[in-house]
Each structure stands twice: as C-alpha cells, then as structure tokens.
C-alpha cells in the first residue's frame, strides 16, 4: 500500500480517517457515502462549494461516531485545527475493529480516567473511605451513583468537583455516549491540574487509545 504525503504540489492522494453514522451516512450533511465494493474503493465524493473533511489520528476523538472508515483524499489537503479538508474523497475500507463494543469500551476507559482523577483528589483530601467506595464500584452505573453522592461541595472542594465529573462521565459511558464521556473526562483533567493546555494532552491519550484498539497504528497516515 503506498504511503502518502501531503506535500503541496504532490498529486498523490492522501489517506486519512473518517467517522460516519450507521449506514455510512455523513453526520451533519446526512448524505450517504458510496461504500467500497468487490475490492474497489467507493466512488469519489465531491461537492460544489463544500469540502470533504477527515481525521488525522490526533483528530479522531473530536469526531466519534458509530462507523470508522479509511478514506482517500484528493490532494491538496488542507490542515485545520482538528481535521483536514480536501476537495474530494472516497472510502477505502471500513475499520471493522471499531464497532459498538469498542465504542462502549472507549467510553468506559475515559470514565475510568475521570474516576481515577477523583480518587487521587479524594485521597489527597483525606477522604479515604469515600475514595475506597469509588474504587470499589463494580459498574459504570454504580460508579455514577457513588460519585454523585460525593459531588455535593463541588464549588468548595476540588475532590468533590472531580467526583462530579466522574459521575457525569460514567453516566454517559453507561448510556453508550462515549464521546460525551470522553469530553467530560478531558474537562476533568483541566480542572484537576488547573491548566487548559492539558485538554489537548488528554485528547491525545484518547486518540492513542482509539488508534491502538482499532488497529490504526500500523497504517501510515499522511504527515501534514
């Protein structure tokens, strides 16, 4: 498989990733992307007056949806803050490892990180029994219930605020709303460290999790 670069002027198509809703439907436009068939890529999709958007690995956490696809983009590809844009794209293959179970596991992994932040803070605060109750919660729903009970003085105590994030994140994870859980966790990290910059770092952790579980790491992605 040829690896592609995004050098301006190069005609080589660039490969990237794209999240779509079930049925390979674009989440915002609602149009149906042509799927690959019989070993051939899907047809090129091109709009007049509108670009095609896709993800580098680092962008994936921003665009979570139920289907993940490998996509080929027509050069030149424009790099934006959290996605890349091109005049045309076509679907190459569906990433089968990204399914509802993986999506769910992603939400749970993020919620567990939020829980761990709360655990650390509660421990530092000397609230050891509460920390233990949190650590012992066997399910996302139970975690939510326990954490919610500890979130009462969120304005006054960081540990309570983080318990609040933990409750919210685990609630979303239990609902299967993994993107919501992940965002809540990234916000929790910012609160825990009192530093807005760590948001992106947490997103990177999330991107790494997705790439590993979906087996994306082995395929070269355009360096832009």
């Amino acid at each position: 498989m040829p690896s592609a670069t995004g050098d301006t002027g190069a005609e080589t198509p660039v490969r990237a990733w794209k999240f779509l809703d079930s049925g390979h439907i674009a989440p915002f436009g609602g149009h149906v992307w042509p799927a690959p068939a019989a070993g051939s890529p899907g047809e090129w999709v091109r709009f007049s007056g509108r670009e095609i958007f896709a993800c580098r690995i680092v962008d994936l956490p921003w665009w979570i949806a139920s289907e993940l696809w490998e996509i080929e983009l027509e050069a030149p590809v424009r790099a934006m803050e959290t996605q890349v844009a091109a005049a045309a794209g076509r679907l190459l293959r569906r990433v089968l490892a990204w399914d509802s179970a993986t999506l769910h596991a992603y939400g749970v992994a993020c919620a567990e990180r939020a829980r761990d932040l709360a655990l650390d803070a509660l421990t530092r605060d000397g609230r050891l029994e509460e920390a233990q109750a949190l650590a012992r919660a066997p399910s996302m729903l139970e975690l939510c219930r326990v954490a919610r009970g500890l979130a009462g003085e969120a304005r006054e105590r960081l540990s309570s605020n983080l318990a609040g994030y933990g409750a919210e994140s685990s609630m979303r994870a239990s609902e299967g709303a993994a993107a919501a859980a992940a965002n809540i966790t990234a916000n929790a990290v910012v609160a825990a460290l009192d530093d807005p910059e760590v948001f992106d770092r947490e997103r990177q952790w999330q991107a790494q999790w997705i790439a590993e579980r979906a087996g994306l790491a082995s395929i070269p992605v355009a360096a832009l």
Partner: protein
Amino acid sequence: MSTARRQDIACRELVEILTEFLEGALDEQLRTRVEQHLVLCPGCREYLRQFRATIGATRKLAEEDLPPRVRENLLNAFRDWRHGG
C-alpha cells in the same frame, strides 16, 4: 475553578445560532465548533433534531386550495381591470 475548555461553545450559545448553522452562515471556525459540540452533547443533538423536525412539520401547513368564493371575487377584479374598471 477551571471549567469547560475555553473553545467549546455552551449549549445555550449553540441554540442561539442554530438557524445560522443550518443556513451555512457561520464562519468555518464557529461551524466547526458547533459540529464538535454536537458530537459530544446528546442534549444539543436532540435539540437540533427537534428544530429540524419543527421546520419539516411546518412545511406541511402549506395549503393549495383556493376557496371558490375567493376565486370568483378575484376573477371579477381581473375582468374589471381588463376592461378598464
């Protein structure tokens, strides 16, 4: 206390700019923020669904039929005008 990341828009802001979003009137940066927010917010996704459903249902209010009485009145007006009335 540090709260939500400075660049995420709040739900309250999103619902204010929904029509602009649907019309493609937002600049790229703001449109991207709206889209990102929709990914992570089930509440706003549902709100958008409802907003669109409202517009879709409203379309059904379009009526076609002209009441016969009105038709007659206007036709008379037309004929009057045609004959210099």
